């Protein structure tokens, strides 16, 4: 099974590209790939509850939604502000995932 770590650094205010990236992630997940999508920097704004980035489709297809804890704290967001299904992740988890043999990583 293909294993992906997709990293989105742009938020919904930066244009439609972030939502397209999420759609790509959902497509990969629907094809049977293991997909972890990390939101970082302004990308964490996309995980605020009420913002439709296509999370329901992504999560329903087995995708994992990681949100960078540091970026969340920098923006004074609370855990309760995030969409259901998201979980906070620290950089050591990201490093561990990147060092897993066979993982394909993309930064956007």
């Amino acid at each position, binding site marked *: 099974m293909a294993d992906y770590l997709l*990293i989105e*650094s742009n938020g919904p205010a930066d244009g439609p590209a972030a939502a397209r990236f999420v759609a790509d992630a959902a497509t990969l997940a629907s094809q049977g790939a293991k997909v972890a999508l990390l939101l*970082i*920097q*302004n990308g964490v704004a996309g995980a605020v509850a009420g913002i439709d980035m296509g999370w329901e489709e992504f999560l329903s297809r087995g995708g994992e939604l990681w949100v960078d804890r*540091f*970026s969340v704290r*920098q923006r004074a967001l609370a855990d309760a502000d995030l969409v259901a299904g998201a979980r906070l992740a*620290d*950089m*050591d988890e*990201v*490093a*561990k995932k*990147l*060092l897993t*043999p066979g*993982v394909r*990583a993309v*930064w956007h």
Partner: protein
Amino acid sequence: MIVPPSDMLLKVLGGPHHTELVTSLFRLAQALLDADASVQVWACGAATGLTSASLGDLKPRDVTDRATDYPSIAALAGRLVRAYPERLNWYVCRFCSEDRGNTAQIAEVRTRPAARFWEHVQAADQMLVLGVC
């Protein structure tokens, strides 16, 4: 030069004035090093300015806090390389640095021809490209 093998190649494009990209680079590099990984950083585009010798050791004085010294990005990069001399190598693209007048670099980094980038990719088990020009 034979490029030392590494677990991870982080190619970075973009300067500190664009986004928090450089913060993410430092955070990720530190996390990889904490996980005992060997890392190489390849700075391209505006990122060649991160280790420009002209930055000096300190940022310009904060007029609201004149007593505090804040290290420059170049000083932080040099400090990180010195902390992990066996597992961290920082390379700067010669073409991009010359194109931007950043030819004078700090001693901890090495300038490499753009045409040799493939050797760095070949020497790495994994690669992540951060940012755009």
